[in-house]
């Protein structure tokens, strides 16, 4: 039973939670800027499209709604469900200030509040593009119904996707909380689920490679929100389908809330099982006890072994870095953004290339090293958290920085080198090119591993983001991650191009350092003859000079400079990180 005013309280909880999210985003200005840019840019594109093609669109007249439109909306809805599920499982299985909220209001109120908050978050993302779309439809077709029905369809789409995602998310979270097997293998199972979802996405979106195409999803009622949205416009949908999604949404809301309330109540008031429960019972208690007292860290990080020759302080820092990453893989969420953005682009171009390995191998030589560096050492001070003052007075900067670099070298380096080398030998590469790619992977890994702690220690992030209940999860700053990513993958890509296609690398460099700035300066200068025009001519000269170098010479000189630069950066980063550690004074 919920309290009498539960609906009103749920709205209060939802609005309060939403405000907290907005404040948290606003505190990280770079993140807020990127999110705003991600909303404004496509909306402006849409405005431009509507403005430019308004005449053509009006002339088309009445058309029937194509199945691909329903399929696209269905895909969008499924994506929303995936995100909502993932957020519940990894970020919000339990609530903030749980002891306060659960002794103040009913579980139904909390569930309603979380649903309101999550829907508001979705609508905040959809608000601008949906407003532009609505305005565009009203402007193009003088259709007042669109002003009501497009936002309504968007709200229903967001609300139902969030609801279904929450139902699935709480079911998974409950499984993790009650099944020792699932708790123990949640990282692997989660990875399989994400891969399955990505596979499903590719199966639907890549008909040219055996997929079904988005229009196949048009049969799903979740794509019929578009039928509701186009009522009153010259685009003719199906009234029956519109009615089905309208009524169906109501049923989903009522049934979904009831279901989530049951799941969440069980989850919040159940004592969660530990993934280590079964394992402890299986081992010999006497042996474990005597062993754990002496080599607990080494046992916990097995099968990874840190060589005994390394000093004990460095070894301990390395072991703890590995253990922290293994026990709390959620801290690696920040790796997903660049991997997904670059990975999806690479996947598309790889699938369209003559041999996918021609794209994937160089990509592995560039991306795996970055991951090797970023996985363990992108925010060492933030990872230390409240222990940082103790760490600072317990160990030298030299030992500490070596310790946080070590996991990347011990684990990341072999993976980057073996994957790149193995795939290069199988792929369309001559032996010298394959060896060169392995060399790139090797060098890039060393650079990535040494620059990550330097960047992370100079620009630490201490404030936690809400990932589950753990206040220890402190991802690196978005700007730091982007800086490290571009700083490692940019030069590594250029070195790879120098190796595989020096002429293209030469043209690229000539464009970046010469022709592009020359063109921009000339654009600003216009017809005027002056400093800007002179600068433009100077840059153009540089571009021409670079372009005049032969491919072989460019490969030798450009590649050589990049290698020397990498060595210098590695040494400098290492020394900077050590110095910063030794002189660091934590704020109160």
């Amino acid at each position, binding site marked *: 039973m919920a309290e009498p*005013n539960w609906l009103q309280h749920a709205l209060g*909880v939802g609005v309060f939670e939403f405000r907290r999210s907005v404040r948290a985003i606003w505190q990280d200005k770079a993140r807020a800027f990127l999110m705003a840019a991600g909303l404004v840019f496509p909306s402006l594109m849409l405005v431009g499209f509507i403005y430019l093609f308004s005449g053509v669109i009006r002339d088309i007249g009445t058309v029937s709604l194509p199945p691909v439109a329903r399929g696209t909306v269905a895909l969008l809805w499924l994506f929303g469900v995936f995100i909502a599920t993932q957020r519940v499982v990894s970020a919000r299985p339990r609530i903030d200030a749980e002891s*306060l909220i659960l002794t*103040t209001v*009913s579980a139904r109120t909390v569930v309603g509040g979380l649903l309101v908050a999550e829907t508001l978050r979705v609508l905040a993302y959809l608000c601008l593009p949906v407003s532009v779309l609505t305005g565009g439809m009203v402007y193009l077709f003088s259709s007042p119904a669109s002003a009501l029905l497009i936002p309504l369809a968007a709200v229903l789409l967001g609300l139902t996707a969030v609801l279904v995602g929450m139902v699935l998310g709480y079911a998974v979270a409950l499984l993790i909380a009650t099944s020792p097997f699932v708790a123990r293998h949640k990282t692997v199972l989660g990875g399989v689920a994400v891969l399955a979802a990505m596979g499903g996405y590719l199966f639907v979106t890549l008909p040219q490679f055996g997929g079904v195409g988005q229009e196949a999803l048009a049969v799903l009622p979740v794509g019929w929100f578009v039928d509701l949205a186009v009522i009153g416009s010259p685009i003719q949908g199906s009234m029956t389908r519109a009615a089905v999604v309208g009524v169906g949404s109501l049923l989903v809301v009522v049934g979904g809330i009831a279901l989530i309330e049951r799941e969440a109540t069980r989850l919040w008031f159940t004592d969660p099982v530990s993934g280590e429960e079964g394992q402890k019972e299986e081992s010999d208690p006497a042996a474990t006890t005597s062993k754990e007292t002496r080599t607990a860290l080494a046992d916990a990080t097995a099968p990874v072994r840190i060589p005994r020759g390394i000093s004990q302080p460095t070894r301990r820092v390395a072991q703890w870095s590995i253990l922290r990453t293994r026990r709390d893989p959620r801290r690696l969420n920040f790796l997903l953004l660049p991997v997904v953005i670059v990975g999806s682009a690479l996947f598309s171009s790889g699938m369209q290339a003559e041999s996918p390995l021609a794209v994937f191998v160089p990509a592995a030589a560039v991306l795996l090293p970055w991951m090797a560096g970023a996985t363990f050492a992108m925010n060492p001070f933030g990872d230390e958290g409240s222990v940082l003052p103790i760490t600072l007075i317990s160990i030298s900067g030299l030992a500490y920085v070596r310790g946080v670099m070590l996991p990347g070298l011990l684990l990341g380096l072999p993976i980057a080198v073996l994957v790149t080398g193995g795939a290069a030998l199988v792929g369309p590469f001559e032996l010298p090119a394959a060896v060169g790619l392995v060399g790139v992977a090797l060098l890039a890994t060393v650079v990535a591993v040494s620059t990550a702690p330097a960047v992370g220690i100079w620009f630490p992030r201490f404030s936690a983001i809400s990932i589950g209940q753990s206040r220890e999860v402190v991802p690196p700053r978005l700007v730091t991650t982007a800086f490290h990513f571009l700083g490692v993958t940019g030069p590594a890509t250029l070195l790879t191009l120098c190796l595989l296609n020096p002429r293209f690398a030469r043209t690229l460099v000539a464009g970046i350092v010469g022709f592009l700035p020359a063109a921009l300066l000339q654009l600003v200068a216009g017809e005027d003859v002056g400093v800007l025009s002179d600068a433009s001519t100077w840059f153009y000269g540089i571009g021409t000079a670079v372009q005049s170098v032969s491919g072989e010479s460019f490969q030798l000189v450009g590649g050589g400079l990049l290698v020397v630069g990498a060595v210098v950066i590695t040494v400098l980063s290492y020394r900077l990180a050590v110095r910063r550690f030794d002189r660091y004074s934590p704020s109160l």
Partner: protein
Amino acid sequence: MPSIETTALTKRYGSTTAVDQLDFSVPDGTVYGFLGPNGAGKTTTMRILTGLTTPTSGSATVAGVPVTNRDSLRPHIGYLPEEPPLYEQATAYEQLEYVAGLRDLPSRETQNRIDELLDRLDLSPDDAATRIAEYSKGMRQKVAYVQAVLHDPDVAFLDEPTSGLDPRAARTIRELIGELSDEGTTVFLSTHILPVVEEVADTVGILYDGKLVAEDTPDQLTQRAETGETRTLEDAFLELTSTDPAQDDTEETYG
């Protein structure tokens, strides 16, 4: 009618028994000092009594309501856990008004009560309008305390309420606990600061290894049964929670 009553209350986590056959009752409007070493089961007991977790066996009522009936229990209780449950992004005013709203408290009276309590605890309006993320541990503790008693609960569960407070604020909290009790609120107080218990508690229960090993008034607990000489509550606590086999004798003396 007792405000809190437990009968054979037991909580097990796998093979570990956190709370073992707990029987006690706390009369209305009194302060019950709940003591025990770390890991004795105090927090688990409080979580059961506040409905946050369910007992494995046995039963308990708070303000006459079974603790398993969470919806009926909520209006009667206030809870200050050891870690103050606050939202970093909110100010104290925002947090307290939010919680008051969730409890349907009348806004004018609540506003006055918030101001009065914050003033008693030396939290200025400027402090209260500052984000909680910028608070010291003591300031957080003060806001969490106000939050727990804002709605004038029948039973207040306070876990280490004076933790992190300066002596002045700690004294104020002790006075406020006394006033709460005078106004009819039953206070279930868990703390390691024994002088606090000695000063404010009417009855003290000592939990050890999930079992209630002693329960009496502070005066009686500090009195040696055999010789009649007095000792400090700390001495009594250490004796009762010692791993020494001799504790079996003390259990008989005080149990």
